[in-house]
């Protein structure tokens, strides 16, 4: 079974990637916008999944980092800087602020940490709204240009969708590598048992701050893509509900699973759109779907799959044991 599973997984992954490249080619403007939004939110959710799912640090501030990245990109690109430079600045800025936000996590944990980050999120929103000399206040920043990538303009929806998808691919590979590196294992040790991690020589202080900083930096990347995607930003999208939405994506998809954020972002961004035919009821149905899913499987969508696979493995193992035992008996 396991010899068969790996090629199957790779084949499935390739089919999904090919589908994401080919199928949107004849999508209309709105469809491409929604799909690009999915890619951007998946990046932000992946960052939160690192902080929360792997390192176990609850954060209700991911939306604020998307905002920080978006404003950094908007300000720089409207002043003539290229987008890649803006992304670098967004990463550096979110990383630094995320590092500082990690300090409370050294003192308090769980729900208290959630509340501190929630307060930070609201404060960031107030700064976006009130410091109009910097952020344009409630009028926001408009005419955010889309970049030229290798000399190709991406101002049309399809090329920019590929920019988002490509960024998602790069971030995914980076995160894939990170969680398989010793760092990823240190993060998980932090989540499972901080005391034991420390006694084994993991510098929990540094890794806690790192978990926040790296997760936040990915939020910044998402923001730096969000600004050219919508080409206009104001403070409203970056209020507390974005942070709550991102948290919902991570939990619904399956916290601590690599693919969780992709599925979670799909539920949060695409499901409401699919339900639009129900008109005024679509958000209500969405809320009911999320509650129903969480009641069914509190560990998210991938939790269901994980349980199913674990069950199958146990069954397979017990069959093997039974076979081995009967063989032993016949030999005797």
């Amino acid at each position, binding site marked *: 079974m396991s010899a068969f599973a790996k090629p199957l997984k790779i084949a499935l992954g390739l089919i999904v990637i090919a589908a994401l490249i080919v199928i949107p080619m004849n999508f209309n403007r709105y469809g491409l916008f929604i799909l690009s939004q999915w890619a951007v939110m998946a990046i932000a959710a992946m960052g939160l999944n690192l902080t929360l799912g792997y390192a176990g640090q609850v954060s209700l501030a991911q939306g604020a980092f998307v905002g920080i990245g978006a404003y950094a990109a908007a300000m720089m690109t409207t002043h003539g800087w290229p987008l890649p430079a803006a992304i670098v600045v967004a990463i550096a800025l979110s990383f630094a602020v995320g590092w500082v936000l990690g300090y*409370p996590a050294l003192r308090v944990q769980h729900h*208290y940490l959630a509340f501190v980050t929630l*307060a930070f999120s*609201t404060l960031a929103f107030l700064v976006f709204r009130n410091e109009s000399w910097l952020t344009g206040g409630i009028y926001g920043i408009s005419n955010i240009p889309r970049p030229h990538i290798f000399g190709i303009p991406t101002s049309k929806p399809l090329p920019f969708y590929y920019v988002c998808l490509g960024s998602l691919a790069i971030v995914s590979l980076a995160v894939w590598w990170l969680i398989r590196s010793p760092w990823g294992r240190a993060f998980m040790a932090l989540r499972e048992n901080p005391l034991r991690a420390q006694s084994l020589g993991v510098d929990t202080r540094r890794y806690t701050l790192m978990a926040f900083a790296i997760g936040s930096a990915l939020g910044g990347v998402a923001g730096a893509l969000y600004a050219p995607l919508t080409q206009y930003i104001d403070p409203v999208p970056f209020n507390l509900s974005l942070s709550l939405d991102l948290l919902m994506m991570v939990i619904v998809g399956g916290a601590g699973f690599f693919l969780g954020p992709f599925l979670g972002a799909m539920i949060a961004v695409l499901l409401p759109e699919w339900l639009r035919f129900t008109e005024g009821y679509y958000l209500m149905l969405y809320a*009911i779907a*999320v509650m129903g899913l969480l009641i069914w499987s*509190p560990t998210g969508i991938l939790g269901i799959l994980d349980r199913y696979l674990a069950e199958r493995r146990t069954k397979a193992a017990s069959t093997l044991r039974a076979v081995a035992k009967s063989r032993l008996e016949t030999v005797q």
Partner: protein
Amino acid sequence: MSNLFDLLVAGLATGAIYALVAVGFTLLWQTSQTINFAQGEFVMLPAFLMLAAMHAGAPFWLAIILGILLSMLLLGLAFKMLLVDPMMRHGVLPLAIATMALAIGIKEAVKQFFSAEASPFPSIVPTGDVSILGHAVSLQSIGVLVLAILAVSGLTALLNRTSLGHQMQAAAQNPTVARIIGVPVERMILLTFLINAFLVALASLLITPIYLAKFTSGEVLGQAAFIAAIVGGFNQVRGAIAGGLLIGVLDNLAAAYVSTQYRAAVPMIILIAVILFRPQGLLGRAEERTV
């Protein structure tokens, strides 16, 4: 000076409502580790239930009773049985997320089935001003303050002076031992959910005449109550009361003396400071659970 007095009275009145909501929030946390992100929507909904009853032709007093009973049924019983019970043993976070989804659901349901516009709501306290120490104080502020104080002192008396209250405290502090000595823990948890539903319905009745009934009005209120509960002490009812009053007064003073733009920042900064330097809250004791 007269300005300060007015601000204090208005602050205490809103603070008293925050306290009601924060107390319910704290009760749910203590007995079932539910962080209810829909608490603000829980306050928004009863006003609409009462309005619906009045549209159906019920007089105001009957609408109030029906609204309170319906919210106890929906926000107390149904909330506990359908959402909290199946998820309680899976930890704090999935349940908190589920209540976020519930908040969206309630908001959208009100918008869809009732109205997206703000509706006026009758006040149970007569409007007008009375003169206290030479200041004109609105009867509404006084009425809100008195009713909220009555409700909270009634609850405190129930918790501290009756056998039922002692059983609820036991169920919150140590469910296992409480079960051994014969406390019906499940029923006590259900009771706290019903009390929470009653408190939010009361808060709804008191606050909606001031801010109108609107499907989004729970957002600000829920957050204020949330902060009040944490600042006062997440694990103590009297902490939640103090926190509510403090946040209400500070919010009003900040709007007048700091800046209207950053008034919302003041409670947040206090929240961060309290969590970092006194995480058990101003009145709470470290990691102890009492009702």
